[in-house]
């Protein structure tokens, strides 16, 4: 059983986002980068499967050198080796191309990743990878169990969930509650330092989209407070002032 877990290195969820260079670059000053929270779920489930079935886990990141701390942390949590494709991950198709190229060389049984990265929120890479490899893709996956080469999956749908079955190999976009996030222990951190991390250059140069510039949302106006003993006024204001109801 070979599992590929694709991870992103993204600003911590509490980050206040700002931009530099005339709004063309993320201001990384003072920003803590973390493993994408959804990717963390994918990795945690992979580690559980490894503990149960003896799988090997390769972590893959499409990113620049500054994403290596995130990759090392994934190794500390339980991945066996890692590959970094040395490129800025700005375009979903481009990132998918890199993942597909690595997957074609190594034929994984499962390719897991988060349902979306929390920077661009596209939620598309797993599907494009599936298409490129000609195998099914499923997202967002809440539960994953294996029975031989059949995956039993629960996926969230609007207003509920559905139970699915499909044969491996599969590409899955994961989310809670597929597994509990794992925290690396000291032994994991020590061994992670010597686990192999291979850096490869990207294949293809198809960036089908680029970001011309960024913008921050306009701040909301001041909050209008309504005394609790006149709570009914709120409904009037929503009706006559905000005109939303």
């Amino acid at each position, binding site marked *: 059983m070979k599992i590929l877990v694709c991870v992103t290195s993204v600003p911590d969820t509490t980050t206040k986002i700002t931009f530099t260079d005339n709004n063309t670059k993320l201001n990384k000053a003072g920003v803590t980068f973390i493993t994408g929270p959804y990717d963390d779920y994918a990795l945690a489930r992979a580690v559980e499967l490894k503990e149960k079935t003896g799988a090997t886990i390769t972590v893959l990141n499409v990113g620049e050198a500054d994403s290596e701390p995130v990759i090392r942390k994934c190794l500390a949590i339980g991945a066996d080796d890692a590959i970094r494709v040395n490129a800025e991950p700005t375009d979903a*198709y481009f990132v998918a191309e890199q993942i597909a190229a690595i997957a074609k060389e190594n034929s994984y049984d499962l390719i897991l990743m988060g349902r979306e990265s929390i920077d661009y929120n596209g939620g598309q890479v797993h599907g494009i990878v599936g298409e490129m490899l000609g195998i099914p893709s499923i997202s967002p996956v809440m539960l994953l169990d294996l029975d031989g080469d059949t995956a039993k999956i629960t996926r969230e749908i609007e207003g509920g969930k559905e*139970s699915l079955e499909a044969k491996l190999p599969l590409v899955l976009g994961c989310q809670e509650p597929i597994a509990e996030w794992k925290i690396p222990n000291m032994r994991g951190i020590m061994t992670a330092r010597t686990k192999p991390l291979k850096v490869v250059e990207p294949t293809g140069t198809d960036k089908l989209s680029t970001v011309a510039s960024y913008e921050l949302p306009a701040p909301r106006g001041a909050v209008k407070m309504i005394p609790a003993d006149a709570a009914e006024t709120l409904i009037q204001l929503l009706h006559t002032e905000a005109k939303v109801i």
Partner: protein
Amino acid sequence: MSVLIFAELDEGKLKKSSQEAIFYGAKVAEMLGTSATAIIAGAADNTELASAGKFGATKVLHATDAKLNEPNGMAYATVVAAAAQQEGSKVIVLAKSSLADAMTARLAGKLKAGLAANVIELPNVSNGFVVKSSIYTGKAFAFNDLKADIKILAIKKNTITPEEKDASAAVEAFTPTLNEADFAISVKSTEKSSGDILLPEADFVVSAGRGLKGPENWSVVEDLAKALHAATACSKPVSDLDWRPHSEHVGQTGLKISPNLYIACGISGAIQHLAGVNSSKVIVVINKDADAPFFKSADYGIVGDVFDVLPRLTKAVQAL
């Protein structure tokens, strides 16, 4: 060359978000000097399909194969790709949804298309093809320059307000060749709360957090939601505690919604929660703690006990 819109059905009816997508697609078609065609898969009657015309589509391709009656992202991608090829479409528009997400990614892979997700405005076609989208979970926007020959725009709810006109679309049956491989995933069972307003589609949302103290207290939330015809939502701790289903969880790791009105009850407003709701048009916060950070991001606030305030709001709505 027409702009192609992937429109979804919910129990045989055109989804509200798809009406928005059709209207948006028709506007883009106008900008490009072409027409708008909708591609719809699954069972629906002709009157319903033709109603796409009200929102600006002149033609509807109806994929009638019974195998498509169950939503299937992979098979729908095959259908939409075939439709795009038949129509020579260079721009494909759809509304974000769990089905659309699954379909779009496969489609982008098939067509090698430039893709912008969470689009919130009409594109600027004066110099290239630039679309504004929401990124960093609503904390910022990006102006995406789509360079590929074929472009896919996945629009967020409330990107555009559809205006209806008195027109109907010509409906044509569409029967592309389906791939057996697209049916490799078998659906064993589906659990769906029926009759409720779907959260991602809802114009109004009443949401509650740990301030409600327990799942048995949700009736005050549900009553207000019912009076407003709103969907109910919840914070992450509430879904983690299993007080409410995960499909109601809004925030950084849950659904990102953009309704006209979001009422947060007993939710303190952690930045991760705000990320999922900050593109709502109007935000109301009700919390007994005057220092709850959420008040800073709200349009209207009430410092008070939700068990006192909510029933009074419900009555006031009923009296409107």
